[in-house]
Every structure is written in C-alpha cells, then in structure tokens.
C-alpha cells in the first residue's frame, strides 16, 4: 500500500533522486523545495553530500561571504544548483526579470540573481517551477536572464539537466535544445501536461508516472528534513509539515 503524500513531498523526493551520488549541491534564494530535496539527498548519502544553502546559518559552510558560491561554481566545486523562472521557454531560456517590454515591464519578477552565471558553470542545473501553466512555460521568454544553450565558443561546462514542475518532469536534450517529457506526477495526465505547456517538446510514446515517495523517504522528509528546512524557510515548514521547530 502506498502512503498518502503531499505534492511538496513528491517534488522533494523526485528532485532528491536527481542528486543522489553527487558531492556538493548549492541552493539559492527562495527555494524551499529544492532545499528540502538537497537535505533529503544528504540524509540518504550517509554524509557524503555537501549542501550549501543560501540564507541558512546551519547548512552553509561558506566563510567568504556572498562571493564564495560563485567562485566555487567557476572552479567546478558545485555539482548541482536550482533555477526557476517567471517564464521558461522550450529552449530552456529563463526569464527572472519581467513580462512585457523591458525595463517598464507590466509584470516585474525579483531579478536574475546569479542565473546568468551559474547556468553556465554548474553541470547539473535543475529547473524548478511549481506552477505549470502556459503563462510560465512559454514558446519564447520576453527577457533572457540566462540562455538554455550557448554557442560552441562560450565556456559552458554547465546547463539545464531537467525541468521539474507541479505536474511532471522533463529531461533536456542539449544537442536539440529541447525538453522531452519524462514522467507525469501521480494524479496528472499526459493530455493535461500538453494542454498546460506553452512550448513544443518531445513526447515519447509511453510516458511513465513519477515514482511516489517510499514510506522511509516520507519519514525522512517529515522528520529530519522538515526540522532542517524550518531554519531557513519557517513559513514553508509550518505550512507543509506543521513544523514550528524554528519558533522554539
């Protein structure tokens, strides 16, 4: 019998599976689910996975301020990172700036953060955006904060590895600069994903279901991971896990 789980728990479990075996995962701003996934992967790694979470005091080993993450990334010391986007297009270009004509955009997002750099340098960049609608997954972004692919002369050991949304998982084919639907989350359908995706992507004949988190995974998420994530994301931990550890 499969245990019941929340959508956030499925996402944490799904993303954590993409991190198993890595050495160092970094987490940027406003990323509770990727943060939870990294902490889950670390809990399962027996201590071999290093997690560096921006905004955390407990889960951040950097001692050289804001620059160290970027310096580490350029040296190849970060294996995976997460980026989102107010818009993401079919070539994995991401827009964290706004919708409409720049600079007076009609919708303004927070800004590009380190995307225009880390997307180039971190080998496994996992794109994560919970909202999976045609307004987010667009044919072409209005502003390229960071491009999905680059010309061959551009130094680019990094780039998009997968796109995880609230409905499905896409893989990214760098040679074709296209996403390929990999799995659809339990409770969602291929047809629904097609309807809600604004860009063209490859779709295999058979698309599997994203695996539900195992009972022991859920136990880890609700215990150790919930406690650890509450330090940096108290509102998230309180809402999803009813965890108020950070308030104590």
């Amino acid at each position, binding site marked *: 019998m499969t245990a019941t789980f929340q959508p956030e728990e499925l996402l944490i479990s799904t993303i954590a599976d993409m991190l198993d075996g890595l050495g160092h995962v970094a987490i940027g701003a*406003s990323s509770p689910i990727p943060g939870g996934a990294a902490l889950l992967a670390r809990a399962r790694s027996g201590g071999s996975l290093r997690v560096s979470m921006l905004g955390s005091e407990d889960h951040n080993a950097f001692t050289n*301020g*804001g620059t160290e993450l970027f310096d580490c990334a350029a040296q190849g010391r970060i294996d995976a990172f997460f980026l989102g986007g107010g818009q993401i297009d079919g070539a994995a270009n991401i827009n964290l700036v706004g919708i409409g004509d*720049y600079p007076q955009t009609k919708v*303004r997002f927070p800004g*590009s953060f380190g995307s*225009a750099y880390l997307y180039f340098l971190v080998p496994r960049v996992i794109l994560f955006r919970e909202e999976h609608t045609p307004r987010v997954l667009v044919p072409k972004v209005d502003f390229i904060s960071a491009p999905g692919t680059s010309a061959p*002369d551009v*130094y680019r050991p990094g780039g998009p590895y997968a796109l995880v949304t609230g409905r499905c998982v896409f893989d990214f084919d760098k040679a074709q600069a296209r996403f390929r639907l990999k799995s659809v989350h339990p409770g969602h359908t291929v047809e629904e994903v097609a309807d809600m995706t604004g860009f063209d992507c490859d779709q295999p004949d058979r698309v599997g279901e994203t695996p539900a988190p195992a009972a022991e995974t859920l136990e880890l998420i609700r215990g150790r991971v919930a406690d650890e994530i509450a330090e940096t994301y108290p509102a*998230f931990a309180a809402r999803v896990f009813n965890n108020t550890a950070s308030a104590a």
Partner: protein
Amino acid sequence: MLDDIDALAARVPDGAKVALPPDYSGCAMAAVRALIKRGVRDLHLIGVPSVGFQGDMLIGAGCVATLETAAVTIGEYGLAPCFTRAIKAGTIKMIDGTCPAIHAGLQAAEKGIPFMPVRGIVGSDLLEQRDDWMVGNDPFGDDQGPLVLVKAITPDVTLIHAPLADRHGNAWIGVRREMMVMAHAAKTTLVTFDKLYDGDLLADAEMAAGTIPALYIGGLTQVENGAWPVGLFGAYPADDTHLRAYMEMARTEEGFQAYVNANVLDRKAAE
C-alpha cells in the same frame, strides 16, 4: 562614534551611491528609517548582490532614483510591493545585474583596478542593457571564449548593521564577509551595531578575522535591534508578524504611507 542615528543618516548625501546587503546579512533598518525621515533623495542603491525590505522601503518613500541589483527579494513574503509599483510606473531607473558581476565590480574597486572579468553572462539579455559591461577575451590566449568585463563599482557609502563594534571604531561582521568587500570597495562605510564590544576587536585573533577595521569606517552608532524588523544573523530572527503587516499595508501607496507614518515618522511608537 556618532551621537545617534540621525547624525549617521546625515552622512548620506542626496544622490549618493549606497551599497546595501540582502536581508539575510546585516541590514541597517533603523538607519533606513532615519534616512526616510530625513527625506533623502535621488539615491543610487546597489544591492549586494540583492536587496530586500531596505530597498522596498526606500523606493516606496521616494528616496531612490536608480536601483542597481541582481534582484529585489523579500524571501517568503512575496514580491516587493513598492519596487513592483515603481517599475510599473517607471519612476526609478533600473539597472539589472547578476550576483557575481556585482561582487566582481566591488572586488575591482577594492583592488583599485578598473574592471574585473566574469564568466557566463554571454547570451543573456542583461548584457545588452549594460554600458558598464563589455565582452572581451583572455589577453594571454589560454581561454578561447568570450569573457564579460565588468566595470569597477565604487559606492559612495556602504551602509550596514553589525552585531558588535568597539570604541576604536571597528565593527564585527563574523562570517558575513560580503560586507567586508562592500566596506573595502566603498569610499566610506557607515555602521549601526547592536552591542558595544568592551575591548579591541582587532586585539583578539578570533574576532579580528571577522572584523571590518576602523580604517574603512566613517561613522558608527549603536542601535540595539538595529536590523529590526529584518533579522540579524546569529542574533535574532525576523519579526514575522511585523513584516506580514508591512506586506499587507504596502500593497497600496496609501497603505505604505500609513506604515511610514506609524513606524518611521512617529519613531517612538515603533522602537
């Protein structure tokens, strides 16, 4: 050591280029309130590398002409309301950047050199917007691809809040070393601090490693809880109730003005 927060705020002239840290670092929120109360104008804010409530409040209060930052983020609370309104209305000049380029620009300034090369960025629309970035190559020829050259960023003032400072004018920032780079790069640094360290921070090797020497600091004043309502690393968390109230009120211009009236202009009520 300055008399009070108003004396510190008076050191920030209209039109100054002011570097500010993000909410998880050391935010001189009391100084931001004093600046708003003073009615400072035409600031050029630099978020290092992003800015949060400080930027949103200064923008909302009409103190900002230019905003240079990789992002405006107030974390879990949502989109920064005053910033979002200002962009829609076109009332501030926006200079969008990316975190490592801002750090690199400050690093160039701290080294006294005109620019710093940075990886990535090529192919981002950010590049087209920036006349202070250009594409170059490795002059040694080892690296074949393009590199982005980022012009040095020299703030007039770095404004921060530190957990500790001493009577010699040194300020302790611990592991939050982006504030060290900010202090090195700026023409001067103004510091508010929570607690007075009884002694010389530079005399204790453990403390000295995380201390901005007085050499870089133009003025300090003690403001206990000076980062409130934002938190201070290692000291206190953000005042969640207050920040939620801010978000609710700042949804409209009138609401923001009411917030300023209650918490900035009538300061006794707030502190």
